[in-house]
């Protein structure tokens, strides 16, 4: 059975998009058929990591939500953009970055149910093993919906007091939605912190297992979302952490 996995954080800038892109790349390199949907319609960004801009988007998620195209037509095969040996295949369904189209969706809203139908359709038509959903930070109807239909939820937080509070709300909601698999990830951990201490504190706070504590990485900052980290730095400790998460997803 294919797995729908949402990547979420209560606060912005925790590393959702970069984590999503890198996990998806690792899964595709392992031979799986993987899809990524950018549901961050208000502030899309993950397409950048795959070197895409507006002119590369034949269709976007927005077109699908407006009934202009089938969701499959908004799927872009980005396998070739990975710059690595990929046994599987990777598709990206980007959100529009046209200002007018973002404005329209914010103003008019859209049929959230179409998202669920669309995700299921994608999994079927592209014969996906995994569908990763990159979300807008915080909680709204679509993030709740993506949690509600996911078999696994990756919650990303930084070891920051504001993140602790907000993440508690997310964890609570995920439990209420009976999400079968909750994978907690701590990202951007300062070098000065003891990784194991952070893990322990987070596990205690939320009473759930922490899959990975990712250090803050200067290399990641310098890459600045212009490339896939795991391809550029296959032996970096951050890549090793991404691998641990991938193993958890596959389990």
């Amino acid at each position: 059975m294919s797995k729908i996995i949402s990547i979420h954080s209560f606060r912005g800038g925790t590393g959702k998009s970069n984590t999503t892109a890198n996990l998806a790349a690792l899964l595709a390199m392992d031979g799986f058929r993987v899809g990524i949907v950018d549901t961050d319609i208000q502030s899309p960004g993950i397409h950048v990591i795959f070197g895409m801009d507006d002119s590369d988007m034949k269709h976007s998620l927005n077109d699908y939500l407006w009934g202009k195209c089938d969701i499959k037509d908004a799927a872009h095969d980005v396998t070739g953009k990975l710059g690595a040996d990929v046994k599987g295949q990777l598709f990206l369904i980007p959100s529009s970055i046209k200002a007018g189209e973002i404005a329209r969706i914010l103003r008019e809203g859209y049929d959230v149910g179409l998202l669920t139908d669309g995700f299921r359709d994608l999994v079927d038509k592209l014969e996906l093993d995994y569908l990763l959903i990159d979300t807008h930070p915080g909680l709204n109807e679509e993030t709740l919906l993506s949690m509600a239909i996911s078999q696994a939820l990756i919650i990303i937080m930084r070891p920051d007091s504001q993140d602790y509070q907000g993440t508690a709300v997310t964890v609570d909601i995920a439990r209420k939605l009976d999400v079968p698999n909750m994978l907690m990830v701590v990202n951007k951990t300062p070098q000065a912190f003891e990784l194991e201490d952070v893990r322990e504190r987070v596990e205690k706070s939320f009473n759930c297992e922490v899959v990975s504590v990712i250090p803050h990485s200067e290399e990641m900052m310098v890459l600045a979302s212009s490339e896939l980290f795991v391809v550029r730095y296959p032996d970096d400790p951050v890549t090793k952490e991404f691998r641990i998460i991938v193993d958890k997803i596959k389990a």
Partner: protein
Amino acid sequence: MQFSKSGPPKKDDRLGNYMWELEHRPQSKILPSDVLKFSDPLRAVLNQAARIGRISLSEVSKLLDLPPEQAQRVIDLIVEKDFLRRPSSLGDNPVYETRLAVRTRKLNDELPKEILNKLDDL
């Protein structure tokens, strides 16, 4: 069925309580965020339907611990609330698909109108 006038049903009236809860959702349609407000095991029914995409009469009957005739009444009300879709043919154990196709409520962090208008002009 209307329970609103008579107030909440007695604690041991399981069917009555499920129906009462469903009747008293603030919105006419059930959205994902509404699911959070339901108590278990009604919430478990809605969660399972949303995650798997469908749910059968026997599954609802088991989750709610109700005989099929009563589970059917709960399902009918959920269909009325647009969360489940009535199947085209009803067999012994009909399967209902989820139907989440409803317009979103306003997004949380909506931009002010003036900014939206400016973006439109770009």
